[in-house]
């Protein structure tokens, strides 16, 4: 595979000339040697450098500093700064942060960026290379699933709200499955993402280290999972072995659908196609059912089923779902073609989350994410305006999730909360105790929790 091909696949901007392919083992050996030499060099020198622009101490990678000496003269391209994670190709450091973004052209900051970027001459005088000088709010990208109209609307709202605060963001379309986000993290494709939390939690590759690199900022509103099937299908288990439309591959819908079906132990055969196509196939009998998450933004679903041949399947709630899902209910008002009058269809809501990409604690990207988080939280009321998506009104910024939260987000929440009191602490302690039990909060916990709530509320009266 050529570098050009790899660039296209990974999304990384690789600043190096194409060279004849070299076996992977040889490339790894070069990378090992370069990294080892870098570690050795770093061990003999100070590992912290003072950034020229901010004056704040920034941890620098010993490998990134010493690799040029080990692999030949490498100079920082104009307008770029070193990427904090060294990436090697054929033994050479090749990835430079900021190269791909093209953000400087549109914001007219070429001059300042060039001024911030160290010149080759400067590099010759000092091995210390500046990290991104200042977390810049005026240029960020938010990744959203192009097949999820509601996520796209949320993303546009988010960008608009931060733009009102002086930021200059843009929405970029891309996959938000765990695999796609993994590529986005490593490929430096975006700063933030709106991603399905259930799929992230179910992903086997989401190691603790990877989770730290993709912390969540806020848990967004849950959206009902809808399963539309012919009326002779009354039970989710009847879909085992049959072909079910899951949504486009790598989409939020597909990952949420796969997670839910796996959780119930129903091995349906997923068909990956857009919702409108899947509904056509369902109507033609080529699919047994179609799964739609966030169907409120899908006109195709709103118009589907006028012939009354189809209906919504219920998804039974089970306590084991509590850490990820929340109960949800659909009525004829939501789906007049698919739900009979006076009928309630119970299902579950799959949560989305606002994720910071490649923002491990202490990294330069974490600083950028912190600035974005602060702007987001402080401008949140703009998102509650009537012209914004109604889902913002159900967002609890302090809501927790079984996923690491960006430290700056947690610090902002802690600072914004009013001072606690002993009765509120007792209520929260009771909740923690109930939640930490095997199986989570149980029926027998309900009265103790209720009494604790009453004591807290009574104490404030």
């Amino acid at each position, binding site marked *: 595979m050529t570098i050009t091909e790899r660039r296209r696949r990974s999304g990384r901007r690789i600043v190096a000339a194409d060279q004849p392919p070299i076996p992977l083992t040889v490339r790894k050996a070069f990378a*090992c040697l370069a990294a080892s030499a870098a570690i050795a060099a770093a061990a003999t020198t100070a590992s912290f450098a003072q950034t020229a622009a901010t004056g704040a101490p920034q941890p620098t990678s010993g490998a990134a500093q010493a690799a040029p000496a080990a692999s030949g003269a490498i100079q920082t391209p104009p307008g770029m700064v070193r990427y904090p994670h060294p990436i090697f190709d054929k033994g050479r450091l090749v990835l430079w942060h900021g190269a791909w973004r093209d953000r400087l052209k549109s914001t007219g900051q070429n001059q300042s960026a060039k001024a911030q970027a160290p010149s080759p001459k400067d590099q010759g005088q000092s091995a210390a290379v500046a990290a991104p000088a200042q977390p810049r709010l005026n240029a960020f990208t938010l990744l959203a699933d192009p097949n999820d109209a509601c996520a796209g609307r949320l993303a546009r709202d988010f960008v608009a709200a931060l733009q009102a605060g002086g930021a200059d963001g843009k929405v970029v379309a891309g996959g938000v499955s765990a695999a796609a986000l993994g590529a986005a993290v490593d490929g430096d494709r975006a700063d933030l993402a709106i991603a399905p939390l259930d799929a992230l939690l179910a992903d086997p590759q*989401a190691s603790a280290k990877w989770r730290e690199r993709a912390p969540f900022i806020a848990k967004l509103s849950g959206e009902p999972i809808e399963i539309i099937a012919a009326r002779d299908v009354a039970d989710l288990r009847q879909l085992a072995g049959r072909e079910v439309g899951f949504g486009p591959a790598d989409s939020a819908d597909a990952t949420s659908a796969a997670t839910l079906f796996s959780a119930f132990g129903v091995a349906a055969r997923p068909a990956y196609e857009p919702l409108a196509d899947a509904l056509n196939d369902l109507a033609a009998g080529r699919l047994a059912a179609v799964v739609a998450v966030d169907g409120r933004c899908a006109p195709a679903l709103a118009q589907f089923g006028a012939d009354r041949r189809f209906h919504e399947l219920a998804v039974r709630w089970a306590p084991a779902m509590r850490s990820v899902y929340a109960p949800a209910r659909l009525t004829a008002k939501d789906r007049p073609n698919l739900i009979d009058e006076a009928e309630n269809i119970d299902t579950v809501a799959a949560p989305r989350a606002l994720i910071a990409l490649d923002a491990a604690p202490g990294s330069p990207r974490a600083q950028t994410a912190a600035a974005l988080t602060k702007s987001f939280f402080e401008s949140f009321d703009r998102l509650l305006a009537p012209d914004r998506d109604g889902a913002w009104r159900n967002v609890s910024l302090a809501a927790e999730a079984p996923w690491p939260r960006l430290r700056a987000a947690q610090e902002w929440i802690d600072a914004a909360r009013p001072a606690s009191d002993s009765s509120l602490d007792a209520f929260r302690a009771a909740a923690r105790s109930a939640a930490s039990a095997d199986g989570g909060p149980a029926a027998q916990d309900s009265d103790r929790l209720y009494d604790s709530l009453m004591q807290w509320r009574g104490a404030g009266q």
Partner: protein
Amino acid sequence: MPMILLKSVAGLFAGVAVGALSLAYWPQIQPAAVAARPTVEQPQRVAQSAPVGLDKAALDKLALALRGAKPDAAETAEGPTRGLTLTPTDVSFSGPSDEARQFRAQGLVALAYGDVAAARAFLERAADAGDARALLALGDAYDPATLARLGALGVKGDASRARDYYQKASEAGLAAARQRLAANEISQ
């Protein structure tokens, strides 16, 4: 000759050291195995026999718990995958009071954790199942005064809905609901 041998041994040690350091540093060069997995860029219709990319152990545990929700019916007639009954009749609870109380417990935990939207969803299920205490807790989950004291950020209260739930709880005989209404805690 001994000097040559000594140099060779030293070189060997140096090589081992470099190799060890390389192994120690290698994860930062290849930081996430997730990236190696292919990404399908163009939507296409592909049928697969089983879902992929999921934590089987975690999902097995979840599936086991799901099946365990109805242990009396799960293993009797239709094999190990049964236990999920999805008709409107069957989603009603075999033990309504316990189920309602469990929803209430989950709702109160979510409320304490600041997840107000989830708390409302759980408590509404409990209230629908006839739990009067859930009605009062729902009133609190919509009460702007409660949310302010709780430090709920983002989501807003709804005084009108809170009053409605307090009223229903009061009609169900809860004295605390009457106190809430009498104290006129909710701003108009």
